[in-house]
């Protein structure tokens, strides 16, 4: 590791700022600021000491008072936390964004075609591009969806793709979230808080707006309405107040002006879904569901679920109600399937993928498996079915006992794991105490796919707030920042 330029280091704000091989969002090199970070840097340096902390506290209080919190599972107290907010914006230039946007549009288009294909003719399987057993062994594959006509052929209407920036500054895809991606409410509230806390800085940039997201989302949902329902009743289905993302569900429903419902509010009759209101039953046409497949219909999927709506799947099959996202989309964001996405893009679109993948070892292949087992201390192993940073082994930071445990697990069920090299993804300046320090960040843009594709310019930048940590999940000590895409 080499320290940043002495000139910069002289500044009280940068005493602990180190640069190494990882890409730094602010410094192109020692003593070399990326030009688009200049105003941010100057502004933060010009504020009197203590002022930054004061503003940060004002921001946090504002989150708490608005009830913008999430719940952490498995700590016994089931307490509500605010998602730590970092004051320093993450800035993406217009050119960088243009490429990301094209890449994401390409990817979601291909993934929707892939889902249509595997649930219908299965051409890609016949052509041997994607191994058949990989699809059928995926626990998110829903045989009930086979042969089903899906409105507009939209399987994934709402997607949140996790991107990271490599050492060379290129964005690559780390993960596609095609089931019920969350976090968009933080993207929106971060922006609102930012405008209030640092208004002058914000107006010094030409930041592209993101506030239209909820309207675009509503438009996307409306475009999926069943035939002959010109004024569709759209609802957001939440597992309820105990869900960690309940705040987001309530927030989005309120912003869109649609009803926030739970499974027990909905009833099925003759394959039509109704919601119970004090004015009687009201037909439901489109459901933006934030409940996983497994729990959404005890008749079709897990019978022990009390969060779902009995008969929802049949109503869906009958075409009387639309769902976003459709059932069974998880087969395409399986962490093992991920390795095939570049091939999937080429197969359906005959284009080269614009956004690259991270190198991924499929552990059902004996050669890869052998390599991974021998190099567990250098790799990251992920369980394919888990999300939120759970069920992971980070090789360089693991103990011998943990590695032995994962070795056993991998050998017992290789389909359930993938491995990737440890990537030092980019770091962005964060306010730690009274100083700026670099922390690892990722980026989750939100893609809407209805009658057209919309990628809202920005996304959720998540930060691994612990020094050196690579885990950005909110449940594991991550925070977030406002993300500015410049016009």
């Amino acid at each position, binding site marked *: 590791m080499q320290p940043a330029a002495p000139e910069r280091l002289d500044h009280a704000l940068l005493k602990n700022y180190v640069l190494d091989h990882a890409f730094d969002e602010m410094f192109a090199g020692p003593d070399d600021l990326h030009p688009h970070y200049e105003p941010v840097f100057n502004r933060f340096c010009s504020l009197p000491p203590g002022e930054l902390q004061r503003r940060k506290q004002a921001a946090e209080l504002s989150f708490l008072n608005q*009830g913008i919190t999430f719940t952490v599972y498995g700590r016994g107290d089931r307490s509500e936390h605010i998602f730590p907010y970092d004051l320093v914006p993450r800035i993406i230039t217009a050119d960088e964004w243009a490429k990301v946007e094209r890449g994401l549009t390409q990817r979601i288009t291909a993934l929707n075609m892939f889902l249509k294909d595997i649930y219908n003719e299965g051409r890609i399987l016949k052509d041997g591009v994607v191994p058949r057993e990989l699809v059928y062994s995926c626990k998110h594959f829903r045989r009930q969806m086979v042969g089903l006509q899906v409105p507009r052929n939209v399987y994934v209407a709402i997607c949140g793709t996790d991107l990271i920036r490599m050492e060379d500054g290129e964005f690559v895809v780390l993960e596609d979230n095609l089931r019920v991606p969350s976090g968009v409410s933080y993207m929106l509230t971060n922006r609102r808080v930012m405008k209030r806390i640092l208004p002058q800085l914000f107006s010094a940039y030409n930041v592209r707006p993101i506030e239209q997201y909820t309207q675009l989302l509503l438009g996307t949902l409306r475009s999926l309405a069943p035939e002959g329902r010109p004024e569709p009743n759209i609802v957001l289905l939440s597992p*309820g*107040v105990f869900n960690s993302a309940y705040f987001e569900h*309530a927030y989005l*429903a*309120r912003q869109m002006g649609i*009803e*926030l*419902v*739970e499974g*027990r*509010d909905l*009833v099925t*009759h003759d394959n039509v879904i*109704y*919601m*119970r*209101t*004090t*004015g*009687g*039953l009201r037909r439901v046409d489109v459901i933006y569901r934030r409940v996983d497949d497994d729990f959404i219909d005890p008749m079709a999927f897990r019978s022990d679920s009390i969060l779902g709506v009995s008969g929802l799947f049949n109503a869906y099959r009958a075409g009387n109600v639309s769902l976003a996202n459709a059932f069974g989309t998880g087969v395409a964001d399986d962490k093992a399937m991920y390795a095939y996405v570049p091939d999937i893009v080429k197969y359906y679109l005959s284009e080269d993928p614009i956004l690259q993948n991270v190198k991924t070892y499929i552990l059902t292949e004996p050669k890869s498996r052998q390599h991974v087992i021998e190099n567990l201390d250098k790799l990251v192993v992920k369980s394919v079915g888990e999300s939120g940073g759970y069920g992971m082994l980070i090789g360089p930071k693991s103990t011998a006992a943990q590695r032995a445990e994962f070795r056993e697990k991998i050998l017992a069920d290789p389909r359930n794991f993938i491995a990737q090299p440890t990537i030092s993804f980019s770091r962005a300046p964060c306010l730690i105490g009274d100083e700026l320090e670099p922390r690892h960040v990722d980026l989750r843009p939100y893609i809407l796919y209805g009658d057209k594709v919309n990628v809202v310019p920005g996304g959720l930048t998540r930060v691994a707030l612990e020094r050196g940590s690579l885990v950005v999940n909110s449940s594991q000590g991550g925070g977030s920042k406002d993300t500015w895409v410049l016009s």
Partner: protein
Amino acid sequence: MLSRVADSLYWMSRYMERAEHTTRLLDVNMNLMLDESGTSADHRWQRMLIALGSPADVVWEGDPYALTDSLSFDTDVPASILSCIIAARENSRHVREQISSEQWHRLNTLYLQVTRPEARRVDRSEPSDFLQQVMEGVHQFQGVSDSTMSHGEGWQFIQVGRYIERASATALLLEAYHDDLWMMHERIFEGTEYLEWMGLLRSATAFEAYCKVYTADVTPDRVLEFLLLDENFPHSVRFSIDTLQCALQAIEGGSGRARAEPLRRLSGRLQASLHYASVEEILRGDVVGYLREIQMQCRRIHRTMYELYIDYSIQTALAG
């Protein structure tokens, strides 16, 4: 409005009203202990339990502090103040988007005050601080509900919950006092017996209001008349049913249901019977029967309202 939301608002409000009622009865009876009285402590505390609907798992064992403690803090007793506040808060959590942030804040603060461990550790022989705190918290919540929440359908369900609870609780309170007071209405009450009357009136926050109407000259028929039939006093049964009726009509108008006929008939009939009753008539007849009839009508209104707005069967809803 979603039926589930209406249900939560209704119960949030009912539980708050119930917490207030229990709190006030405990406070009044603790206070009465300080004075000599013709009625024994045993009798008074047992009477209070009857007025609270003889809650399961609570028995009078001769220690007023133990009884107060369990009716305040015991979460295994569904009727305890703590249980009521927890239930009210739980209901409000499910409809946080529907109530104002001030309401949520007020209720949540009260919840945090009463559930912190120190709340219970204070000297058991001095429960009045705690009771005072709860009373203020509930009053603030009700005030904030009226002044910060839009008076639409949701607020009307809050009204229904509050006043249906209040009407039945007041009727039950009068019933519990019946044997002691109206059975002997030939007698003249003085001294210690006067305290009993005050206790009853204060159990419904009615003492001052009563004096304004009838002066401090307390007689049994007037107390009954005031708590049952007074038009303007917010804890009287008649006032509660009037307000309830008002709220039900607003809900009916707002949700445009033609099927509300049975509910309208029930509440209207109860309202009319209170409007045109006279206390002499009631006293000549079966007082307990009259009071029980009111409680039964309240239960029937609750049931009918549920069938109409909340727990209706799909078949009837589709047919209607």
